[in-house]
Each structure stands twice: as C-alpha cells, then as structure tokens.
C-alpha cells in the first residue's frame, strides 16, 4: 500500500511539472497553431535565473524560494513574449519555418546556457522542509512533491480564472475556436498571441524553478528533457485544451511511475505506447475538438 501511495504522489508531483510546461504549449498551439520547440528553453533559462536569485538571497529560506519563483515566472514570460514578438510573429501560417526557428532557438539556447553556466549540473539547495519527508499511509513522501502539486493547482486556477473572467481570456477562448472570426469582429488577435506566449512562458518558468527542486539540480538540458513529455501530454490531452493538458499530465506521470516500478523501468516506453494508442483510437486527443 505504501508503495502505491508513494508512486501515486510522486506521479502527481511529476504530473504537476508536466502540466506547467504543457499548459503553455497547448494554449500556444490551440490559439496560434505554433508548435513551439523553444518552450523548454524558457524553462531552463528561468530555472537558472531562479537558482541564481535563491543563491544571492540565501538558498535555504522560503522567502528566497518565493522570490526565485517570481523571478522564474517573470523571466519565462519576458523571454517567451520576446520570442513571439521578434521571431514567431513573422512566421504565422508558415509551419515549416516555425519548426526550424524554434528548434534552432532551442539548440542555440542550450549552447548559450553551456557557455554561461557550464555543462555540469548545478546542484541546488532549498528550504530544509523540502528535503524532508512526510509519512502518509506508511509511505514516506518527499515534501517537494506537495509543493509541486500545490503550485500547479494554483497556476491551473489562475489560468482558468484569467480565461474565464478577463477580456483577453475571452479573446483567447474564441481564438482557439476560430481565429479569423475573432479578427473579423475587429479584434487585433496578435496581441492575444503575445499574451498567450507570456502566460505559457511564465508557467514554464515556474515549472523550471520547481523542476530544479524536484530533480535536485539545474542543467542546460533540463527543459529539453521535460519538453518531450510535455509534448506527449499535449497531444494526449488534445492540442489547445487546458483541461486536457491537466488530466493527461497526471495520467502520463502516474503511469510512468508505476511502469518504472512494476514493469522494470519501462515508464518511458509505456508512455510512448499510450501516445500511440491515443493517436490510433482518438487522434484529436482526450479533450480535443474534431477538426
């Protein structure tokens, strides 16, 4: 029983990370049709800045972690918005060029991070409580999982509230459904594009800071490794669906944990098989709309 609880909560924590990355990817694809391969770079950059901030303020305090999360969110938002304004805006409806530019940016940013922070992982410290465990039904759960889950739930709620109760949220929800009709109502939908990139970048930035606590280090490859699973989550959940991203994040991460433990470390393989099954049975994903 304790093993099941441990795997479940650890899976939820990992799912929280996947969601923080996948939510932005999904919204960006849903509204703009852009597959953003540079999304992992936003995460890595924010993780490094968060780490530097926490180091400067005293890495083992809650205040430093809080400021690191804010800095990570701001860094992710600014870099993502800048990417949209400077690179992506010229390439809407040009999908091949989008892929080339975002893949190129991802590769170049890893080289840049290597140059600035080195290729070795930078091991991090945080508040002591995060490194401790809490016993639940006999399972000793690392406390950082609770933080990940709590922050992901807060981010999900904030995004939902933004989408439901703000004018930009209304424009984004309408734009995901029919972008050209939003334009035909006299709305400059490109501003919403920048806002969505910034929101996605902020979520990824928060994910970057938290990922460094989940794994215990930050490295130039951090974003790239999470991005692969975030893409899988986005496809399984349904491109453009925020609830889909949330549900698929939990399903993928929990399945991955259980398969790793009970099926001899085959978690990644099982996730890819799940992706194949979803694409065969329900190509638009769990919550995606029919084309």
């Amino acid at each position, binding site marked *: 029983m304790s093993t099941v609880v441990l795997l479940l909560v650890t899976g939820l924590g990992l799912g929280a990370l996947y969601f923080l990355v996948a939510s932005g990817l999904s919204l960006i694809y849903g509204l703009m049709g852009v597959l953003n391969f540079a999304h992992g770079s936003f995460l890595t950059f924010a993780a490094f800045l968060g780490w530097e901030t926490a180091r400067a303020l005293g890495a083992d305090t809650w205040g430093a972690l809080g400021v690191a999360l804010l800095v990570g969110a701001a860094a992710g938002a600014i870099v993502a918005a800048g990417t949209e304004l400077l690179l992506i805006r010229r390439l809407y409806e040009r999908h091949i060029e989008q892929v080339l530019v975002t893949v190129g940016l991802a590769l170049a940013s890893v080289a840049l991070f290597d140059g600035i922070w080195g290729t070795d992982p930078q091991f991090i410290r945080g508040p002591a409580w995060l490194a401790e465990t809490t016993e639940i039904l006999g399972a000793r759960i690392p406390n950082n999982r609770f933080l990940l889950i709590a922050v992901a739930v807060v981010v999900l709620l904030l995004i939902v509230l933004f989408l439901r109760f703000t004018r930009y949220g*209304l*424009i984004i*929800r*309408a734009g995901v*459904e*029919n972008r*050209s*009709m*939003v*334009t*035909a*109502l*006299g*709305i*400059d*939908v490109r501003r919403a594009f920048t806002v969505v990139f910034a929101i996605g970048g902020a979520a990824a930035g928060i994910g970057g800071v938290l990922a460094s606590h989940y794994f215990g280090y930050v490295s130039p490859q951090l974003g790239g490794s999470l991005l692969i699973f975030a893409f899988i989550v986005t496809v399984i959940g349904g491109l453009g669906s925020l609830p889909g991203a949330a549900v698929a994040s939990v399903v993928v991460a929990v399945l991955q944990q259980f398969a790793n433990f009970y099926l001899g470390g085959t978690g990644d393989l099982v996730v890819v098989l799940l992706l194949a099954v979803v694409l065969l049975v329900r190509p638009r994903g769990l919550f995606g709309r029919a084309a």
Partner: protein
Amino acid sequence: MSTPVLSVRGLAASIGHQPVVEHVDLEVQPGSVTAILGRNGAGKTSTIKGILGLIARTAGEVELAGERIDGLATHRIVQRGVGYVPEDREVFASLTVAENLRLAERDASPRRELVAELFPDIIARQAQRAGTLSGGQQQMVSLARALLNENRILLIDEPTKGLAPKLVTEVAEALARAAEVVPILLVEQNLQVAKHLAQSVVVIAGGRSVHAGPASEFFADEDRVERLLGVHGEAHA
C-alpha cells in the same frame, strides 16, 4: 448622388495561388441594401472576404465613405465601421450567447437595446452555449454581433442559407429592421429575400461583376434573371 458608403473598383483576390475574384466593381449607397447575386461558385463570398481582407487581395481599390481601406488589416477595416455576418454563422460554439455578444462589443455604448428588441429569443438564452442553439438562433446571434456596434455598413453573407422557411421569414424581417439603421451589402441565394430587401443588385459570374443596377429593373427582366442566375425570378435559387 452622395458618396457611396462602400465603393469597390477592380477588386481581385485569391486563395493561395488560385484566383477566386478577378474583377469586381460595386457600390453601396447610404441607406440602401445592395444584393450580390450569382450562381454557386461565382465568387460572391470571396468578394465579401476580399473586401474585408480575409483572403488576399491582389488588385483593386476599396473605399469606405471615400477613404481607402484596401491596405488595412481585417481588424482595422472592421474597426472603421464594417460589420460582418459570415456564411454559416461562425458563432463561437463553446462560448455562451452573452460571451459571443460581449466579444463583439467595440463601442463604448453598444446598442444592446436594439439587439434586445430585434432578437428577444437569443437574449433570453444568454447563458446557453452558442453551439447548442438552432441554426436560426445562431444566425440571430451572428446578426446581433454585427448590430451591436455603430457600423457604417454591414457585409452579410447568405444569412438564410440552410434555414427552414419559417426561420427564413424571421431572418428576412430582422434584416429589414437592420436595414433601417445601417446600409447592407448582402450575398443572398434566396431571390425572394433579395428582392424583398435590396434596392440595387450586382451580379457576379466567374469572379467578375457582369451586371449592376436597380433591383426592381433587374427582377422585372425575367429573361436576364434566368440568363445570369440560371433560375426564374420567382423561384428560390
């Protein structure tokens, strides 16, 4: 004659590399309804989309009350007072009726009273998702979105398409009321509706305007109606 609300000269437009409008001239006078008529695939909807910049314009001039708008992006054209009611309604299915209307509001004082007066049925369904409305109700939402703002002209594309006869009558009545407050450029396959509403007609064939003139003269010449549209003037196309 006063300055036309909308003047289109030599409009050409394409989708991808495929020309869909080759040379269209038309004018809409203040306080009037001009109907664009033509056979299926003639280029009527593409003309509307070309005016709005929803498809690529490749030649021609478009003026709104004497001011060139053909170099502007779609949202800028709409902001200058061009309301659009698309073919197939294109309401946002996952949004509620109220959200569809709120999204369309551009003016500081949107004409909610007019919309409530014209479309009481949809106002009563504000909390309902637009995708669950009937085709006629969705058409009302689409018309209401365009009427909420003080537009200089409405471009309305096949508003009665696919509707039951009773709903066609309701939509035609709503259009007649709308025409009292704003000029309309109307694409309409239903000749009875076009005849009822329009003061002028433009006939498009093969992406070109081939006839323009008063609606009464056009519909009086049944041979011409049959030759240009392939239907009898009294029939529904």
